[in-house]
């Protein structure tokens, strides 16, 4: 979708607060911990559906709330969407369906959960990849109105395959609950092709793009 989240190349932003720490407030640490430890309440979801529901925020809200506040709103949205909580429960902050939590497992338990979270997104695909290293490719001009990982700034551009990365879950359908490994490539674009002659001709921008986004020029 042509969403507000697709920020690459948009002008008017800056300067960058280069010394900003990872967390400023305690509630930011807290929401990070909540999201990472309550996935059990989102059974059947995918990482791309999680990303997509953030993209579904009102553009003005997306730009005005901070990263961790987006996480809070999004985790609430996810819970409501899959029926773990009702909208009324979240807005009132009260639930009647009480359950005991699992016994706490301490920092060692947290470390074990972190390690177990080494998730792999690749899978089998019997069709041979259409492109190989060094091939020149062109990206699509138009994308689906739902989730996609072809950013606006890299559409209808010509690049070169830097590497084939195997078949990885296709985000466009993963955001709809499917698990379809499709061929993924790292594609290199000249900065001048993306941004015009003002860019340094030595510079390149590299994206990881699925075969579905690419055609032969």
């Amino acid at each position: 979708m042509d969403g507000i989240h697709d920020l690459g190349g948009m002008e008017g932003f800056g300067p960058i607060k280069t010394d900003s720490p990872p967390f400023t407030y305690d509630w930011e640490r807290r929401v990070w911990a909540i999201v990472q430890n309550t996935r059990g309440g989102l059974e059947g979801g995918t990482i791309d559906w999680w990303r997509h529901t953030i993209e579904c925020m009102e553009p003005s809200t997306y730009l005005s709330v901070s990263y961790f506040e987006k996480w809070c709103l999004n985790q609430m949205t996810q819970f409501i969407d899959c029926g773990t909580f009702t909208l009324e429960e979240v807005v009132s902050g009260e639930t009647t369906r009480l359950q005991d939590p699992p016994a706490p497992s301490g920092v060692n338990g947290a470390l074990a959960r972190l390690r177990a979270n080494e998730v792999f997104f690749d899978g089998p695909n019997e069709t041979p990849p259409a492109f190989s290293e060094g091939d020149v490719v062109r990206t699509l001009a138009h994308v689906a109105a739902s989730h996609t990982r072809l950013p606006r700034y890299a559409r209808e551009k010509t690049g070169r395959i830097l590497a084939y990365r195997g078949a990885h879950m296709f985000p466009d359908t993963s955001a709809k609950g499917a698990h379809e490994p499709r061929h993924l490539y790292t594609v290199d674009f000249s900065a001048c092709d993306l941004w015009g002659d003002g860019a340094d001709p030595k510079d390149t921008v590299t994206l990881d793009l699925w075969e579905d986004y690419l055609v032969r020029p």
Partner: protein
Amino acid sequence: MPSFDSKKAAEIQRHLHSHLPSDPALRVKTLESLVVERGLVHPDDLDAWTELYANEVGPMRGAQVIARAWSDSAFHDLLMRDAAAAVREMGFQGHASGHLRAVENTPTQHNLVVCTLCSCYPFSVLGMSPAWYKSSAYRARAVREPRKVLSEFGVELAGNVAVRVWDSTAELRYLVVPERPAGTEDWSAEKLATIVTRDSMIGTDRDLKVA
């Protein structure tokens, strides 16, 4: 089960933002009390998670990976061939490290990492990302004017240095391997790790300082 319905998600997002108290601390408190009352997580486990990220999971992990790669050529080869396996060997695998790739700076090549579409980051190797990495300004500008962005971080590149920006658009995550500074030839890996900055592993720092 999720609906996978964009319109429904947009409606929920709109409703929440207009009906919840505007203070984000209160919003998070509401979320926490709900998940705890529902038994989805024990509050002590939330403390444990924050403690883990405060003490054990952070840029010092990445720094140890880089320092070992500088000191041990077999490990360097493994890191460049299969960075996920290299960090697993050090016990640093986890959130967003499954498809990790290392990209190496050279005297004529500088690497810079961004995620323009969200804020993808190799958490289990570098810890929580700095706020600027998640900012609209960095996400918008890093791909378009990387040299200006680098200059704001105090990095001025020599005339013959090319910049490659890696936009993390899939589940691959990127770790920049900075150049080992001169004058550190006889340093131990432990000492080397102390000079590797977080920003140098993202690419917003380049010439590491030998204290």
